[in-house]
Every structure is written in C-alpha cells, then in structure tokens.
C-alpha cells in the first residue's frame, strides 16, 4: 500500500493505492495556520481501517519549504562566499550577514590561492555577535574541489546546527545559482526539520514505520534523510505532482506530447519528448531567485475555467485574473466555464443565471449568445495554442554543443495532448480543433496530484568528472572525491556512474527492476599539456529516470474526446 499526499495552495489531497488500484481518496482545505496539522489530518483519515503494517511507503508533496520562502518565514543565514576571480555578481538579497573570503580554485579544481584563516576568524567573531541561525558556504567552482567549503564547514561546525555547503546541492556549474540555492537551503533547514520531527513523532504514535519520501520538482522523490540535508529540493513540487499524476492516468506513450493541467485560475503546460519529461535547463526559479534545483519544465499562464471574461473597448478579454467562481457555480462574473455551460458541455449549480449572464454580454457586444460562447471557448484554445508555440520556439532553440546534436536538430513536435482539470473534458473537443491534435482526458482527475505524488519513484542525478591528470574522480551529488589511476577511461567511468546511481537507487528503497539507471551524457576529452603525454578529462551525467512506481489500473483510463 502506498500513501500519497499533495498539499497545494488551497487544498490538500490524499490517496491510498494498493496494487495499482485506488483504494481511497480524501480532500480537505489547507489550514494555513498549521501546515503539519493539515497533512496529519489528511493522513489520519486515509489510514482509518488500514493496518499500519500494510503501508509500504508514504509519499508527500509539501509546500512547507515553498511557503516558508514565499512568506519570508525563514532563518537568519550567515552567508560566506569565496567568489574568486571573474564576474562581480552583486548579491543583495541574501539577508544581512554576507561575508567574502579571498582565495580560489580554478575550473579544474586546482587550488590557486589558499584560504585565509585570519579572515575566517574575523567572520566567526563578527557572526557570533549577530542572531545568525544557519550558515551557507559557497565557493566558486566548489563542485570541482570542495576542499575549501569543507574546511570552512569544519571551522564553524560546533557553532551552528544547520550548515549548507554549495557543492552538496548540485553538480552543475553556476556560481550565482549555487549561492541562491545554498542560501535558501540554509534558510528553510530548521523549518523542514521541525516539520519532519512532528511527522515522525505522530507516525510513531500510530505505530507506522513505513518510510517517508518527499516529492521534488523534478518528479522524483527523495527520502527523509536526504530531504533533511537538502530541504530546498522539496520546493515547488506541485507542478511535478500534477505532471506525474498525468503520467499515471494516461497511457505510456513514447512520443512527444503536450500535457495541460487546466485549473480555475491558471493552466500549467508541460512537455514529453519520446515519453521523457522536458526539464528546466539549469534549475527552477522561486521568489525571483534562480536556483540549481532540478525541475520539470513547466509554464503557468493566467487562464483557467474561472478566468474573468469581460468586454474592454468593444473586444472580449479573458483573464489573466480570476475574480470569483463561475456564475454557474455561484460567482458574479462571466467565465469560460459559463460558456461551456451554455454550450451544454458542463452542468453548473446555477445554469439559468449563467446563461442569462452570457446572454447579457452577447447583447452588449452584438453577438448571438451561442456565437459568443463559442468565441470565448475558441479564444481559450487560441491562447493555449499560442503559448505552446512560444514555449516550443524557446525549447527548440536551447543551445547544443556537438555537431551531432546540431545536425540532428531534434525539435519537439507534440503528437497529442493530455489534459486534466475541471474544464478538461468539456474543453477537449474545442481544444482539439485549435491545436489540430488529439486531446485525451481521464475519467477522474480530482486527485491526480496526490496520485502523482504517491506513484513517483526516487530519482538520482549525478555529474561525474574524472580527471586523469589530477587523478581525481568527483561526483558532487554523492560527495564522492576519489583517487583514480592514469589509465582511467570513459568505459570505466560510465560503468561506475551506472553502479553509483543504481546503488543510490537501492539505498532509496527502489527494487532492482525499478531502478532504470541510464547515462544521459558522456564524453572524454584528450588533455595535452607539454610533452607529458595525453591525459583525459572525462565527463559523465547519469540518472535514475523519473518514473512511476507502478501504473494505475485501467479503472481511471483515459478517453479521446
């Protein structure tokens, strides 16, 4: 039995899934005063009459860290940066305690100038006189050589409970993003630790020992231990829950697809390429901060079933705001939902009021009511179509670095659309017309996000570099910095990378047949320096493919409109 819980902005949904079948679903409003209680309340209801021993895992998609950041409910962080030579980024939004260190390592991780212990002692003294609760330590190129970050960490470790080192968060290069990511990680660490402690205590009282996993923005899950170290990984998992929910509700197409989650206020758009999710190229943005947190690429637009429809200067306008519910559901303002009600595709609570409101506007603009309803619906389709085209133009222009890739010119071309959300079924035939693509929608979507959270499996991504001249192999994500021989080569590196991600998968509780370790990128560069022969700079990116623990059984199968 798998328990999945998705905490969104307004509602919290939960599901219990056994052998791929949905056993139970619950839905509650979120209590903004007590997020833990919201989750616990949902869990308790789900677990009624379920033997704790039968629970295999609990998967949570939480907004604990997201809300802490957005609501600025975060710890005071002391930030220690070693910027080295290069672009002078101005970091203004890292709180009040920012300290700079001299010294640097270069792009290969070679130490250029050592740490200055005197500077560090001064920072320590200064920080000790301020109400600092957590530390973030980030050096330029620290993923290539974390020695300085570790030494700084050791220097401070007896003084602070929460210390984040930049190299632990991602193997990707991007110093300003590493700084922001480390800052946020340190800033939410104690919030997330408190939440976890509450959770574990409550579960223990119920006699539940099942492992807990937290959904990440990349559609994978992380175990509680990992999440405690990298709580920033748990931010913005909502779109990932909806994405994974759709993967569970629809067939497993290995083609290019566009996924649309249309809600009341917004519509989220995602893409699959050959059945694999498209990711943000570097990382997700939160609260105007660009991070290195891996995420499924998603674009949200201000268009939904409850978007405000009105006439401005004799033209019809839709959104981007939602003022209230559709007239058909007790609101005051016309919405696309009302247009669908008029067209007989949906039934509201107040269909007559809804139709009257539409007729009123039709008269105002001089159209037949049906023509207006059709016009509104087709405008929604048009807006979605334009957005998709813009996104594809952007994604298809993403930089490539090899001749093979450039010549291949692999463009994303959706062959079908998968859609969930309130108006999905009603809108599907119209959208099919606008997009000239088949549009699929599932029978039930109400708890799609919770299903997505429940069925998401753990993922691991690693960025390995093996440098035979320095004789060092590094995998920042796994804190691996090992000696290698001169004769290390690409084959060995790839085998080792696969072994490492598989092992990480096993540690995260994935059965062998679910691990699906794969090499994402692999290359080996000849390094020629002087007459000392040829060394190798080997780079391998490997991952456990994000995916589902199990498919959902046909009960919730999809339909073509």
């Amino acid at each position, binding site marked *: 039995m798998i328990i999945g819980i998705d905490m969104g902005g307004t509602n919290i949904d939960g599901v219990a899934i056994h052998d791929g079948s949905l056993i139970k679903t619950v839905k509650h409003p979120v209590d903004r005063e007590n997020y833990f209680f919201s989750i616990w309340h949902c869990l308790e209801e789900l677990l009624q009459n379920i033997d704790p021993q039968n629970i295999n895992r609990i998967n949570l998609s939480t907004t604990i860290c997201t809300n802490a950041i957005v609501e600025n409910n975060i710890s005071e962080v002391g930030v220690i940066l070693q910027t080295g030579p*290069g672009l002078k980024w101005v970091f203004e939004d890292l709180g009040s305690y920012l300290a700079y260190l001299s010294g640097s390592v270069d792009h290969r991780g070679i130490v250029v100038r050592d740490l200055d212990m005197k500077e560090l002692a001064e920072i320590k003294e200064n920080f000790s006189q301020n109400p600092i609760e957590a530390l973030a330590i980030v050096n330029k190129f620290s993923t290539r050589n974390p020695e300085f970050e570790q030494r700084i960490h050791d220097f401070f470790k007896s003084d602070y409970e929460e210390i984040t080192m930049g190299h632990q968060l991602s193997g990707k290069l991007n110093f300003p*993003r590493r700084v922001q990511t480390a800052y946020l990680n340190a800033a939410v660490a104690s919030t997330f630790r408190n939440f976890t402690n509450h959770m574990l205590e409550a579960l223990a009282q119920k006699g539940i020992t099942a492992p807990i996993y937290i959904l990440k923005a990349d559609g994978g899950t992380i175990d509680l231990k990992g999440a405690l170290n990298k709580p920033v990984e748990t931010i913005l998992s909502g779109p990932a829950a909806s994405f994974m929910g759709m993967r569970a509700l629809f067939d497993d197409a290995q083609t290019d697809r566009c996924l649309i989650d249309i809600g009341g206020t917004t519509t989220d758009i995602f893409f699959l390429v050959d059945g694999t999710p498209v990711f943000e190229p570097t990382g997700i943005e939160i609260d105007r901060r660009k991070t290195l947190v891996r995420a499924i690429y998603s674009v949200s637009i201000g268009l939904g079933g409850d978007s405000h429809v009105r006439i401005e200067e004799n033209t019809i306008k839709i959104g981007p705001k939602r003022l209230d519910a559709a007239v058909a559901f007790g609101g005051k303002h016309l919405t696309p939902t009302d247009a669908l009600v008029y067209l007989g595709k949906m039934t509201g609570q107040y269909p007559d009021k809804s139709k009257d409101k539409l007729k009123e506007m039709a008269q105002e603009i001089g159209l037949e009511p049906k023509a207006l309803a059709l016009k509104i619906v087709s405008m929604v389709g048009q807006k979605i179509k334009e957005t998709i085209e813009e996104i594809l133009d952007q994604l298809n222009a993403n930089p490539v*670095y090899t001749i093979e890739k*450039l010549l291949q010119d692999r463009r994303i071309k959706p062959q079908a659309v998968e859609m969930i959300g309130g108006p999905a079924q009603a809108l599907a035939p119209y959208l099919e017309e606008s997009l000239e693509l088949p549009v699929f929608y599932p029978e039930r979507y109400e708890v799609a996000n919770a299903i997505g959270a429940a069925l998401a499996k753990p993922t691991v991504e690693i960025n390995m570099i093996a440098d035979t001249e320095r004789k060092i192999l590094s995998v920042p994500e796994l804190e691996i910095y090992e000696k290698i021989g001169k004769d290390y080569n690409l084959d060995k590196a790839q085998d080792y990378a696969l072994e490492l991600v598989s092992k990480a998968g096993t540690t995260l509780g994935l059965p062998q047949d679910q691990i699906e370790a794969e090499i994402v990128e692999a290359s080996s560069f*000849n390094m020629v320096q002087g007459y000392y022969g*040829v060394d190798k700079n080997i780079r391998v990116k490997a991952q456990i493919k994000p995916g589902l623990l199990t498919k959902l059984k046909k009960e919730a199968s999809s339909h073509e409109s």
Partner: protein
Amino acid sequence: MKAKNTLGLILFPAFDWAISPTHPEREERLLYTQDQILEEGIEDIDGIHFFNPGIATTKDINRVHFCYPDPETLLTESHFIAAGGMKRAFDAVLGGETDKSFALVRPPGHHAQRVVYGDRGFCIINIEAVGLEYARKKYGDRRVTIVDTDCHHGDGTEDIYWNDPDTLFISFHQDGRTLYPGTGYMEELGGPGAYGYNINIPLPPNTGDEGFQYVLENTVMPILEDFQPDLIINSAGQDNHYTDPLTNMNFSAQGYAALNHRLNPDIAVLEGGYSIQGALPYVNTGIVLAMAGLDYSGVYEPDYHLGKWKQTDRVTSQVQDIARRVLENWKNKEALAEKKFKGKKTVQRQRQVYYDTAGIMEGQIQEFKVCPDCPGVNMVHSKNDRGAQILGITIPRNACAACEKEGYHIFEDKSSSSKQKKYLQDLLNDRYLTSSD
C-alpha cells in the same frame, strides 16, 4: 544583473570534432571556456542570449573562396557550422535581435585565403569573411573594419579584402620575422583599388598590455575616426596571451577586455589561442563582459599579478615607432598609391603560399585591373605542388559595367589550358560558376 548592451553569444564548442586527437584544435579547446562561462552564471544575465549556429551553404563559401576541387571535398561539417555561427552573429546584430554578438566557434578562419587547397594554420575557410559577405548580400553593403587581435598575421583576411576599399583590415600581430605565417609587414598596404586599407601592425615579441593599449589609442582609434565604419568586427584570437604555447607575447585577459571595450566592436569572433586552460576561460569571459558593457575588472588569470608582464622600455619604444609609422602610412595612402600605381593598367602580385597543416605549397599570381570607376575585376592564377591549376576571377560587389563584362569575358575565354579549373566569383550578381559547371 542586466547587460548594458544586449549580446548574442554563439558558443559552439563542437565537442565532437578535432583536426586530430592531440592537435591543438581538438575537442577540449573550449571545454574550460564553457565551464567558466557556465560557472559565472552568464546565462542568467538579462540581455545576454545564447544562439545556436546556423549551417553555411556552399554558396556562402563560394562568395569568398575558390575551393579546389570544391567546398564539399575540402570541408568537414565543423567548417560549415563555424561559418554558420558567424552568419548567426551577423543576423543577431543586423537583424536587430541584439546590440552585439560574439561567435565562440571553432575552427577559426583568419588564415584562409581566397584560394583554398586545404588547411592552413588550422583554418580552411575564412569564417568571418563568409559571414560578412553573407550579411552584405542580406542586409546591404556596409563599410566595415575588421580588427584582428590574433597573435598571427591575419593573412587570409588580408588576401580576401586586399583590394576592397570598403573593408578596412587592421591586423595586430607578432612580427612575421619571428612567427608563422611570416607575413604582415607594414609595407603590405593593399591592391590598387584599396591601397592603404590593409593595415599591418607587426609588434615585437614580449609586447604587453601597455603596448597594445598604446597602438589602439594612438593609431587604430584615429584611423577608425577617419574611416567611419558602419560595422566593426574584432577577430579575437587569444594567442597574444602570456601563457600561449605557440607565441611570445605578454597580453592578458584584462588587456584583451580593455581593448575590446575601447574598440567597441559590433561583432567579435574567436580566432586562434591555444592556452586553453590558462588563457581562454579568462580572456573569453573578459570579452563577453566587455561587449555586454559589464564590469570585467574582476576577470584575471590565476597567475596574473600586475607588473609581472610589464614590457621593457626597449619594447615600448619599438611599439611607439611602429604605431607612428602605421599612422603615417594611413595619412599618406593616396600619395603612396599615386606613386605606386600611376599609369598602370594592371598590377601583378606574385606569392608563395604554404599550407602548413595540409603540407601543400602553392604558387600564385594575382592580377588586379586598375579601374577608375570601381575597385576593378581581378584574377588569381594558381598552381600547387600536387598538380592542381586554377584561375579565379572576381567581379567586385560594386563593379562597373566594364569590369563585370570583362570578368565574364575572361571566364568564357576558351584559349586557356584544359587542365586549369576556372572559377567566376561574380559578387555583383551573387553568381558563382566553375568551368566544369
């Protein structure tokens, strides 16, 4: 962070292409540059955009070169893409997408001359010329200055624009007596249609930041002030760097960035530069920031400290003397041309060209018609030591009717030997023919 000038970066390291596995022009060349650019977070600066290169066509190549036997045989995909990267750089700026652009592509192009039998100095086609001539056809003719800051003489670009008065070519380089390709003297001033518009600045070994700065300020900037180009291109070779393994100069990342900042080019393109760990990551980052109008004062090499690479007084006085003489030539170009070409109907130029990478020796005679109405139709008769013989005829972009007619007349003349392959490069009508067509 926001760029003052919007900048299009065509960063295409071609990680799957090398001349040979241990050749300096190998996969690894831009690896650390890319690392540095990624780590600096350049991609997140507002106003800096990354573009993929396009792919050049054979027509783009034929606009500039006489390739023997033909472009398809000589070039690999990487050359079409490097030239396509240059086209993208021109499109970005002239198409109005960005204020400036920088093509960080490989292999380079500035040693590729009009006639091409193979690889010279790691170049087969002159990617900046291919890009520029493409742009002139697409966006209209323009007065252009190319400032080549590679340590080697830009002999390919010189040859291509030798007789073009609308393309002012200025090459900074280490004196040809001490470095490949052994050309680039001050006296090489151009053909009869563009005398004085080819400017060589041969600098003594060990010239440092100070020397480059001096020449830029005292010679190049006044010349640009005079010439008033519509477009400035910086052929940004990075082998003047003090760590470069192939050369003997003492230029630094700060020096390159400051030069670029002062020159203020619209478009830059990477040329040579093979200190791929110690120089390229810093020089390229410096140029990117300078072009974007951002603070580059923090960009320096691990082993850089002020004073270490200061040039000697002897070098300083040599540099000042050269700077003065180059400017004098520019000011006297009309008088010098009058003296040199007066009364001549045609001007001949005889040269030997060695293809170091391909190991081919070429002998050629160029013949320029002296025309009062246009730069003049011109020809190149060329043979190489492998038995190839070609005749290349160029009708300039702004040719007069007489020169246009004469170009076709020479091309259609049947009296020449059948062993000789003929090429007609009709830049006026954008038509490119060969005798086997």
